[in-house]
């Protein structure tokens, strides 16, 4: 009996909720999401340390609690108990405000990300998103564009040349990559025809995930998301080999801790956006069961699990990249953003717009057939871009293969040197 009551609710459960229910549900969702993301942030820092240890063949923190799981609590207590220091010539108001300004945008994007299929309750249908804004996607872009203030102000208010350089780098880098990010997502909007994130997920559940339909846009968005969150290989604002610690050089204790917290929160948010825009959001692959028919509690739980697994995979990917790639040089960073990613994004928008127009004119219905045609074209484009056009030149000449003349010259020099050494030895 309880089983039936849990999974087959009466007709009111599919209706819109009343104002009172809406307000209470919103507050519960806010608290739940905030708690989940903050716990996620805490354990992502732990995961980073354990995974980096695994990649480098070390043990990592494994002393506090079982498997070292209480390490995050110990770190939190340590950061709260430490002494706060303030630089003498700092602009104190902004110095204190900057960590908060860095943290808030990283969390705010979660307000519009749908994390599961709607939940039926006896008081009406509750959407599993904190605020289902009709401008959802643009809201996320707007919020990510103000994330730079915290970093820039932290750098400037510290009154320290390394911090200032870090802040300047952060603002230059984030403005540059925001453009490529916005351009890459234009393709997503072309396909869905709406900026409402729920609509974008619906489009992917009928046509197939955007990662297959818009592969190059996905790669561009992925790279831009790394740059926007200042993660390796784009962590020039805090490059410790040149800038001590960049924009947070002068910070200590919990105020310092706010910067890593906002970085990890930004990482989780970027992963969730990546999943929403390119991996079908809460859509469960290979089945239409979750998208059709009445909403049930079981569907909500399983779609949430699907969303969480996909998001955690991209969080892992972020960590994996950090312990695999070295940092870019500053000129490589700028040339990648402006000379490679922006032109590719612009060209790709043109290609996708033409393709969508052509397929619509051919009268293809907007379901798996439309998706299949897009996927075929994208497979060709990906092979063209990565294996024919690029050939290892994607970042800058420093990474490119040498042409034949240069190789011949180098070989001649080496041979001459070798001949010289053997001549001396004889």
């Amino acid at each position: 009996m309880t089983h039936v009551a849990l999974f087959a609710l009466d007709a009111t459960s599919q209706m819109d909720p009343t104002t009172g229910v809406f307000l209470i549900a919103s507050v519960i969702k806010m608290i739940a999401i905030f708690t989940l993301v903050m716990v996620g942030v805490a354990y992502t820092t732990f995961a980073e340390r354990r995974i980096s240890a695994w990649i480098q063949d070390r043990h990592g923190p494994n002393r506090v609690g079982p498997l070292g799981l209480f390490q995050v609590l110990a770190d939190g207590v340590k950061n709260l108990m430490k002494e706060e220091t303030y630089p003498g010539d700092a602009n104190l108001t902004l110095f204190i405000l900057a960590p908060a300004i860095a943290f808030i945008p990283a969390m705010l994007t979660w307000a519009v990300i749908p994390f599961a299929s709607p939940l039926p309750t006896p008081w009406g249908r509750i959407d599993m998103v904190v605020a289902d804004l009709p401008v959802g996607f643009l809201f996320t872009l707007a919020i990510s564009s103000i994330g730079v203030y915290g970093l820039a102000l932290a750098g400037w208010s510290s009154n320290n040349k390394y911090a200032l350089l870090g802040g300047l780098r952060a603002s230059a880098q984030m403005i540059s990559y925001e453009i490529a990010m916005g351009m890459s997502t234009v393709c997503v909007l072309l396909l869905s025809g709406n900026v409402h994130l729920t609509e974008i997920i619906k489009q992917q559940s009928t046509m197939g995930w955007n990662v297959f339909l818009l592969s190059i846009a996905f790669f561009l968005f992925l790279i831009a998301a790394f740059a926007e969150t200042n993660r390796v290989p784009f962590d020039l604002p805090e490059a410790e080999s040149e800038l001590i610690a960049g924009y947070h050089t002068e910070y200590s204790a919990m105020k310092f801790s706010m910067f890593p917290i906002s970085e990890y929160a930004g990482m989780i948010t970027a992963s969730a956006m990546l999943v929403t825009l390119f991996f079908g959001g809460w859509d469960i692959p290979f089945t239409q069961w979750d998208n059709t028919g009445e909403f049930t509690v079981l569907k909500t739980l399983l779609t949430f699990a699907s969303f969480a697994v996909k998001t955690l995979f991209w969080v892992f990917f972020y960590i994996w990249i950090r312990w695999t790639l070295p940092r870019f040089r500053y000129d490589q960073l700028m040339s990648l953003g402006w000379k490679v990613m922006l032109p590719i994004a612009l060209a790709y928008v043109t290609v996708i717009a033409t393709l969508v127009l052509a397929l619509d004119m051919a009268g293809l219905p907007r379901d798996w057939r439309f998706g299949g045609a897009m996927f075929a074209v994208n497979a060709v484009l990906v092979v063209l871009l990565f294996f024919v056009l690029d050939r290892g030149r994607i970042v800058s000449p420093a990474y490119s293969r040498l042409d034949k003349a240069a190789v011949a010259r180098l070989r001649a020099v080496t041979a001459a040197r070798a001949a010289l050494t053997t001549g001396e030895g004889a």
Partner: protein
Amino acid sequence: MQNEFVPLFYGFHFYLFGLIALASALMFVTRKSPVAAALWLVQTMFALAALYVMMDAQFVGVMQILVYAGAIMVVFLFVIMLLNLGHPSEISDIRGKWGRVIAGLFGIALLAEIGAASRNALVPALQLPQAPTDGAINGTAGVIGPIAGPMFKEYLLAFELTSVLLLVAVIGAVVLGKKSSNAR
């Protein structure tokens, strides 16, 4: 969500964000430090974005944040930091007593004009924003449909010409910048 609290709710938020916008705009013109002034301007833009959203113009509100607060003001701040201007009291461009008096007079004149215009029979009476209607949100392309349609259909030529104008301005800036560096 349509009940008797909605007008009160909208009225309260209209005055709240209106006051925030006005207060931060005043702080913006009176601050001596350029960084503080820029940040107060960002605050004004956020309050304005909230007002746009209340007037059912979510797209304009988000663009206000994305373009002005998120891009233009960041570049402003970048330039201010890059120049690393000296002590606020040395670089302030607030000019003596007479400058302030004249500027204040102009401000009062402008306020009086707005007041007169709002009482004019030709201009409809000022009204608080109404609660959003579902029709504007649930159209074919959502909230951006009503903006995208006219922009890319009726006014396409004007739109493209404006973008060419902006391109000319960008190229002009680059050319001027190059010339001054070549002159040495």
